[in-house]
């Protein structure tokens, strides 16, 4: 079942709409200029705008800074997001964005391998990084007085990374182990990988974030150097800070650290728009497994690509009607009512950078087949096309989304994640504030309209996991010499 977080990932907690007690943040001494005055002042102050408790600044070197004040606990989260990720990669070097993310911990001109992590640890911090199709991000969570340590270290590795062949040789092995763990030995992940590679042909969403094994095997340290040189620059990054901080002070600190990094020209990103699919695609993935599984996905637009601005929100609503909690249609009708599915979900990433998929996936109930599950899902889609959804259902989704927006405020990290996700794919971060309103505005007719327009067979890809019984039973069979 898709967690509701999938919906609420959109909803940043900044609006007064929720009636939240944190409400508007302290103004921290920063003037909130009128839009016209803003541009004139940017040169001097770096300040772009303030909306609610989120402050936007920009450094002279192009680094965008978004600061969300939240004074509940004496902590701070700092995230640096680079506008690059797996969907910026080319054939032959897939996975390079993620391997470089690993290499970012291997030292700089002044720090040895892993020293970054040791310094953060000694300061009571937690840190890590993640790579997506559309971004690569690094973060630290610290007691608030330690923020300068994070800025100093991150600014250093933005400019001075030391990429050594011997470190790379070991680290790429670690990534291959990661790939085995996450994909090779997980039948459902493996099925998803084949599914995405079938659904997308010329879109870079074709290849997996972690990269094809063969590309990893043939990667070298020069691939690392090229990637780093191309994308790691302040004018291609966004700094997001959330927590018990003063926005003006954070900006001043950023000026002293990140501000010293020189901007560089960034390569032009080709559009790579997926061509129109001309008919249903079906694949079977045979893998050692015990339980069958299926995924089906339809090509759909997202906020960043939609020509009609309400459509992504109607698609989001559609996905939620089918799968947002135990009272949605999939749980009620397919798991409990008809008992066709052991589990079944719907997923849609409304803030992807490129055209994407609306996905349905599930495991058939004992005694049912993947075909029966597919038919049952299709019947649910047909019902949405032919019968208007009820107001009660829409209201229930809206209630969940409104509540989620309040719940999100309990996690400073999550709030920073939302800001970074939007800003990195080139969307205005203020769209997050509009999410609830836009979703509330969706009508039953609009849900029906996007179902009819996008959920069509010619744009559908279906992948089925065909479990192959293990060649060797536990505690029996082959014996291998060591």
């Amino acid at each position, binding site marked *: 079942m*898709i*967690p509701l977080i999938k919906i609420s990932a959109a909803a940043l907690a900044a609006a007064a709409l929720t*009636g*939240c*007690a*944190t409400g508007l943040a302290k103004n921290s001494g920063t003037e909130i200029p009128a839009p016209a005055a803003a541009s004139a002042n940017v040169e001097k102050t770096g300040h772009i705008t303030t909306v609610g408790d989120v402050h936007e600044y920009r450094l002279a070197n192009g680094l965008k800074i978004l600061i969300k004040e939240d004074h*509940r*606990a*004496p*902590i701070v989260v700092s995230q640096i997001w680079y506008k690059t990720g797996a969907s910026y990669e080319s054939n032959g070097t897939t996975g390079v964005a*993620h391997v470089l993310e690993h290499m970012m911990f291997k030292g700089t001109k002044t720090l040895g*391998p892993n020293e970054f*992590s*040791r310094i953060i*640890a*000694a300061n*009571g911090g*937690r840190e*890590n*990084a*993640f790579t*997506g*199709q*559309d971004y690569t991000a690094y973060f630290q*969570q*610290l007691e608030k007085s330690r923020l300068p340590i994070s800025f100093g270290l991150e600014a250093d590795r933005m400019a001075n990374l030391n990429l050594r062949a011997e470190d790379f040789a070991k680290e790429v092995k*670690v990534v*291959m*182990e990661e790939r*085995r*763990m996450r994909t090779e*030995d997980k039948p459902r*992940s493996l099925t998803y990988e084949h599914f995405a590679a079938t659904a997308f042909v010329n879109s870079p969403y074709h290849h997996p974030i972690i990269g094809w094994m063969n590309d990893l095997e043939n990667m070298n340290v020069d691939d690392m150097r090229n990637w780093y040189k191309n994308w790691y620059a302040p004018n291609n990054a966004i700094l997001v800070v959330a927590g018990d901080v003063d926005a003006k002070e954070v900006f001043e600190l950023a000026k002293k650290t990140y501000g010293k990094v020189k901007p560089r020209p960034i390569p032009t990103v080709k559009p790579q728009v997926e061509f129109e699919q001309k008919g249903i695609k079906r694949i079977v993935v045979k893998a050692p497994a*015990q*339980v069958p599984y299926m995924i089906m996905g339809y090509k759909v637009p997202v906020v960043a690509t939609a020509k009609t601005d309400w459509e992504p929100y109607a698609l989001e609503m559609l996905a939620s009607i089918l799968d947002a*909690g135990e*009272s949605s249609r999939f*749980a009620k009708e397919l*798991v*409990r009512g008809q008992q066709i599915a*052991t589990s079944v979900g719907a*997923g849609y990433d409304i803030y992807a950078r490129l055209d*994407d*998929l609306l*996905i349905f996936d599930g*495991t058939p109930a*004992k005694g049912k087949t993947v075909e029966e599950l597919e038919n049952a899902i299709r019947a649910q889609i047909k019902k949405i096309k032919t019968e208007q959804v009820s107001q009660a259902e829409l209201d229930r989704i809206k*209630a969940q989304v409104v509540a989620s927006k*309040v*719940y999100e405020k*309990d*996690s400073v990290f999550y709030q920073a994640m939302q800001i970074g996700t939007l800003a990195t794919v080139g969307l205005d971060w203020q769209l997050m504030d509009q999410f609830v309103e836009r979703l509330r505005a969706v009508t039953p007719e609009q849900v029906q309209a996007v179902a009819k327009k996008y959920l069509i067979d010619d744009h559908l890809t279906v992948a089925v996991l065909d479990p192959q019984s*293990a*060649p*060797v039973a*536990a*505690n*029996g069979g*082959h014996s291998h010499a*060591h």
Partner: protein
Amino acid sequence: MPINSKSLNLNMKNNTLFSRLLTGGILLFAALTGATVSANPDIEHWRTTNGVRVYFVPAPELPIVDIRIIFNAGAARDEDNPGQAILTNGLLAEGAGGLSADQLAEQFESIGARFGNSTQRDMAILSLRTLAEKKVFDSAVGTLTTILTQPDFPKTAFERERRRLLTTLKRNKQSPGKLADEAFFNAVYAKHPYHNQPTGTEAGINGLNTAKLKAFYDKYYVGRNAVLAIVGDLSRADAGKLAETLMGKLPEGEPAGNLPPVEALAEGKEIRINHPSAQTHILVGQPGMKRGDPDYFALYVGNHILGGSGLVARLSNEIREKRGLAYSSYSYFVPMQQNGPYTIGLQTKNESADEALKVLRETIGTFIKEGPTAEELDASKKNITGGFPLRISSNKKIIDYIGMIGFYQLPMDYLDTFNERVQAVTLEDIKKAFQKRIHLDRMITVMVGGNVNPVSKK
């Protein structure tokens, strides 16, 4: 949804957010240990008239209330029917007070309330997050009360949930990690109620019926066997009313008896299971410690150095940083009512399994023999104590802690004294505690993968 579409690991359930490092061990540990901050949550504690132990922290900053009910009714109480505890807990929301699962779900979700349940070896948990606004709050609490006090255990829902659980068991057999965990517990807890997975066994599940679940519920879902944790935007007086409204209709009953102590392992044993996977999952370990254990702090800080602090821990340094053998290598204690496991693990390509096991054993052996260095101890203390504001920075994290403190009846000043007790640990304490408690020659070793000798041997 099991698939990760746009981000490595961001959408994966039951996993961490982090892609660079699989921090399962660390996060698990962090969730189970306590820490204190200068402004510790002010925990209020009382009992309801029917004996429920209540732990409350007011948090007026957000208009939210979190509620967690914990019964001493986890899988360790399964006895002859492994699966009994999880199915009993799981059935509560499948029909109660004459309302169907559909109706109960609609009641929660139409007001944005989130209900959840889970069953571990020690605990059976019900949780609720709701907006604090009175009308919404009253409605959510009303539904939760119905689920808690008037479950119907409908036969059709039971049959369905039983089949779903059997599918889960089957699916677990395709995961080398899950197979290893199961074999590990079976061996470490050969004769102890911690033996089985909380998901039960096929035979156990097939031997159940609704009458047995009802009997389990009647025995264990009682006031004196319950802890109620509340964090949120309500007053002490309202929390008192909430506790009586929610829990008051449960009979007083009896607390569950003590679980038997865990016997130490008499000898080491290696279990090798062949599985068609690219990697071999290796788990090494033994019974560890319980909550409130006198050696808790020495073992906790020591393990932080050995394998509990991610990439800067010794294990990760030896296995991953120096040799590139695994994405994740870790060690952790899970302190429970009785000695929970001490687990050390990694996963590596089949061809490297023996080499990785050798390095793992050498690293543990050296640590037990020599203990940590002064620099390591200093670094770990700085990390643990310097980082504790992060551990109680949200309502969610605070309810994790007070639920744990309440269930295991830890001292009420547990959070207040945590940092000083960490600071007090010496090199000698760690060395002594590890040498006394952790025995490399008497550990269980489990290997599941595609290149292991399938013969089970000592």
